Structure formats: structure tokens, C-alpha cells
């Protein structure tokens, strides 16, 4: 009696488990397929892209879309602009936010709480809300239609300051005291003692900033006007006019632009997802 009951439960558990795995697999396909389809299709020649029935695997794989996008669309420029603004912005983001997070964690000074509250208050005002006045500031500061106009205004980030502050709070003050007794300046302590300790959190900031900058659309859209300063995202959006879409170039450009993101994600997948948890929960 008891044995058969045990068996019933086992059978039920196996069925449930099978259903679980099947649903997960179906969902996984649903989450992977759209991008896979873009990448596969990017190797199809123009004529094959819209055949009915569609070919699943390219019948005559070709690199025409890629060479075409490179030749006609100045894709090299867009790639260079995006790389430049992403790399420089990420470096500046790390420097500025680590400096701020560090002093918020390790020093006591007047107006500290007010200043920190101001940093957190910036979360309440997203770029979408200040598009019009920010444009005015961009123009007034001569940053309009310049890659620096994408880079500089967005390098200070409340979430990053918060992450760095939390990280330094967990580091004992003894490191600083020891250096102080040796006569180091405050800036020397930061540069030579405290900065190297922060490697893990700096890595997280680099990933967040890199991903965001590489994919960002709104800032470049507001700041950049000339085609030769377009980032990849701007170029992709501009190629997709409402009725006439140049799918050949778009598919190829999308595929190339995703390569850095895919590489970073595959290598650093665990850290990225871990960063969401700490950033999202605490920030």
C-alpha cells in the first residue's frame, strides 16, 4: 500500500518535471529565436530575404549584406563613433563615481547627508523628463553635435555612486589609518591603497556602463545631428524609415553591433546577473 503510494508520487513528480523542462525549453526558444533569426537572415542575399515560403537556412549564404552596409552606409564610421564614446564614457564614469562613492563611505563632512540625498534624488528625474531643457544646456555649452555631448552629461550615475559607497563601507578603515601614519596624503591613500582594493566593484561599473553606452539611443538622438557622428543605434533607427526599410543593411548592421555585447555577456554572464541583483536591490 505504502509502496504504491510512493510510486504514485514518483510518477507524478516525473510528469511535473517533464512538463517543467518542456515549458522551459519552449520559452528558451522564444527568447533566443528572434535574434537568431536576424543573424541567420543577415547571410541571405536580397532575393532570398522575402521569398514565400521563407527559407530557414540561407540557400546561398553570402556576405553581400555586410560588405554593402560597410560600403554604402559608412558603417565603419558609426562603429568607430560608438566605440569611442563607449570607451571614453566608461572610463570617465568609473573615475567620477568611484571618487564620489569613496568619500561618501569613508569621510565625515558637512552637508554629507544632504549631498547624498541630492545624488539619490537624481533618480527621480530621468532624461525623458528634461529632454527640452537639456537640449538648451547642450547647445549653450557647445556640446551639440559632438561626441563629447553624448559622453560628458551622463557620466555621473547615482546607482554607481551607491554601489561604490556600499562596497567601501564593507572595507575596514585600518588600511587608511596605516597609510596615514606613514604620512601619505589623502589623495595618495585613495590612489594607491583604496582604489586597487575596489577592483570588483570597478568591474561591475565597467560592465554596466559599457552595455548601457553601447546600446543607448536617447542621448545620441538629442545630441547628434551630422550623419558622420552617428552611433550605431542612431544609424539603425534612421535606416528604418516607416514604410521603406532597407532590411539587408539593417540585419547585417544589427548582427555586427551585437557581437561585442554577446562576447561580453558570454564571458561575464555571472557577474552581469550578479550586478543586477546588487544594483537593483540596493540602488
Amino acid at each position: 500500500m505504502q509502496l504504491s503510494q510512493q510510486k504514485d508520487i514518483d510518477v507524478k513528480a516525473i510528469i511535473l518535471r517533464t512538463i517543467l523542462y518542456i515549458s522551459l525549453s519552449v520559452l528558451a526558444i522564444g527568447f533566443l529565436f528572434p535574434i537568431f533569426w536576424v543573424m541567420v537572415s543577415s547571410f541571405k542575399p536580397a532575393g532570398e530575404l522575402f521569398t514565400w515560403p521563407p527559407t530557414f537556412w540561407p540557400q546561398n549564404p553570402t556576405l553581400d549584406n555586410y560588405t554593402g552596409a560597410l560600403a554604402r552606409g559608412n558603417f565603419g564610421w558609426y562603429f568607430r563613433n560608438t566605440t569611442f564614446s563607449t570607451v571614453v564614457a566608461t572610463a570617465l564614469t568609473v573615475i567620477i563615481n568611484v571618487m564620489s562613492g569613496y568619500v561618501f563611505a569613508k569621510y565625515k563632512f558637512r552637508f554629507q547627508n544632504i549631498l547624498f540625498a541630492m545624488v539619490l534624488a537624481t533618480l527621480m528625474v530621468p532624461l525623458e523628463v528634461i529632454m527640452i531643457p537639456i537640449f538648451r544646456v547642450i547647445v549653450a555649452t557647445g556640446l551639440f553635435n559632438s561626441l563629447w555631448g553624448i559622453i560628458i552629461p551622463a557620466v555621473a550615475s547615482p546607482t554607481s555612486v551607491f554601489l561604490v559607497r556600499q562596497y567601501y563601507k564593507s572595507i575596514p578603515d585600518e588600511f587608511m589609518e596605516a597609510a596615514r601614519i606613514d604620512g601619505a596624503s589623502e589623495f595618495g591613500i585613495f590612489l594607491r591603497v583604496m582604489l586597487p582594493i575596489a577592483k570588483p566593484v570597478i568591474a561591475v561599473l565597467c560592465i554596466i556602463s559599457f552595455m548601457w553606452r553601447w546600446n543607448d539611443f536617447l542621448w545620441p538622438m538629442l545630441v547628434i545631428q551630422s550623419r558622420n557622428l552617428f552611433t550605431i543605434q542612431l544609424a539603425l533607427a534612421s535606416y528604418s524609415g516607416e514604410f521603406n526599410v532597407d532590411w539587408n543593411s539593417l540585419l547585417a548592421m544589427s548582427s555586427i553591433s551585437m557581437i561585442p555585447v554577446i562576447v561580453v555577456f558570454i564571458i561575464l554572464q555571472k557577474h552581469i546577473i550578479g550586478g543586477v541583483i546588487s544594483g537593483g536591490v540596493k540602488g
Partner: protein
Amino acid sequence: MKRLEMKIFPYLMLLPMMIIFTMFLFWPALNGFWISLHNWDGLNEMTFVGIDNYTRLINDRNFVRAFQGTMLFTAITVPSIYVVSLALALMLTRKIRLSGLFRAIFYWPTMISSIIVGLSWRFLLGESFGLVNYVLVTFLGMEPVRWMTNTNMAMFTVIFVTTWSLAGYYMVMLIAGIKSISETYYEAAEIDGASFWQQFFHITLPLLRPMSLLVLVLSTVTVVRSFPLILALTGGGPAGHTRFMVQQIHETGFSRLQMGSASAMAVVLFVVLAILTAVQFRLNRGGGQDAT
């Protein structure tokens, strides 16, 4: 000497960040409100008009439609993101193999730019050439679905793709929330013979409440501001049926050069965001008392 250094050093370190926040955030935020009280084309002198821009918004058919569209879109998208991400999180917190791989796969769409997400789905859902319609027509004998030119379908498409692109992010947060619930509750429930759903409604959901609130607030604030994905997917069409507030602000300001009117819309957007956030915190506090 050292004491002076200790006093000045923190401010010096904060200076770059504060300059940037002041120039590119605090000042524009105040200035935006100021602009909203003026008529301004972005070039010539501003003329003060008081609250005219705000009163005119009520009769601006395009704005009212964008506002209603945004609210409808948010009201459906936020719950669907929550349900999908919670379902994924529940599945992945069972003891299964490859959960790390599945988690990475579901998270993956959040790594792709909104523009590419929009374009990819536009390609898949193409009405005369897309793979989805091919499958529906050939294997299920359906009429081709007008994913982007039928007004109701376009709204559905935009909601579906937004959910697809964001669910993985909140799934990760909900997984962390579920994992932080102590095993002992479930063990005790198991001994009492509680079913999976009983455990879900009486243990998981109540104890997950703080994380759920965070997910709801963050996803609301994100969804209300949707723009690039929709721009790439439907461009706001058909006939403006998926044109939401951010796109409306952008077009009013930069295409029609009505900076004052656009700024008034932006102030409305800000108020909406603030109210939604406050309401969700309030609701959760009330609910929290029920649960204990």
C-alpha cells in the same frame, strides 16, 4: 595642515560629479519647469504665458491620446511583465538542472539595444514576409495577422515585445527574492501537506512582497518612459495609436518646435511617474499589514 586637507578633500572628490549633476540635471529640471510657462520655439525670445501651456494640453487631442495610450500600455504591460518574470523565477528556483543556462537565456534580451529588439520583431512579424505570419497561414490556416497596421494588434504587439525584452531583468531580481525566503517555511508546509499553490499563495507571495514592490515600481517607471523600442517597432503607428508620451514630447519639442508646450508635457510625465511610485509604495504598506 592635515586637518585642512581632511576638510577639503571630500568636497574636491565630489566636485566633478556635482558639477555634472548641477549642469545637466538640477538646472535643466528647474529650467524645464520655467520653459513650460513660456511660448518658445527654441531660437527666438521666450514669451511668458503663465499656465496656458498646461490648460491647452487638456484640449490637445494628440496629447490626450498619447497620455491615454501610455496609461493603457502601462496598465497592461507592467502586470504582464510581473507575471511572466515571476513565472520564470518560480520555475528556475525549483531544483532543476541547467537553471544557470536558462537564467542566462531569459536574461539575454535585456542586453540587446531597444532599437535592435524593435527591429528584430518587426522583421519576424512582417505582415507580408514575416516568419510568424508564414507559420500562422501555412500551418494553422489563419489569415495573415496585421501585427502593426491594425490598431488593436499594434498595441498588443508593442506590449508583447516590451514584456519580452524586460521580463528577464526582473526575473533575476525575483529569483534573488525567492531564494532569500527561508527553506524552513516550505519544509513546515510540506509536513502539513500543503500543495504547491498553497505554498505559493501563503508563503512565497507574502514574503516576496518587498521585492515585488521594487519590481513593480522599477518596471512602471521604465515602461511609462518607453520610446526607442516602439520607435523601431511601429514608429508610433498606425496613425499614432502607439505614440506614447515620450515620443509626443520629443515630436512637439523638436519637430514642431513648441518647446513650452513640450516642457509642460514633460512636467506632466514627471508628475505621473512620481504619483505612480508613491501609490505603489502606499498600496504595499497596506498589503503588508494584511500579510502579517
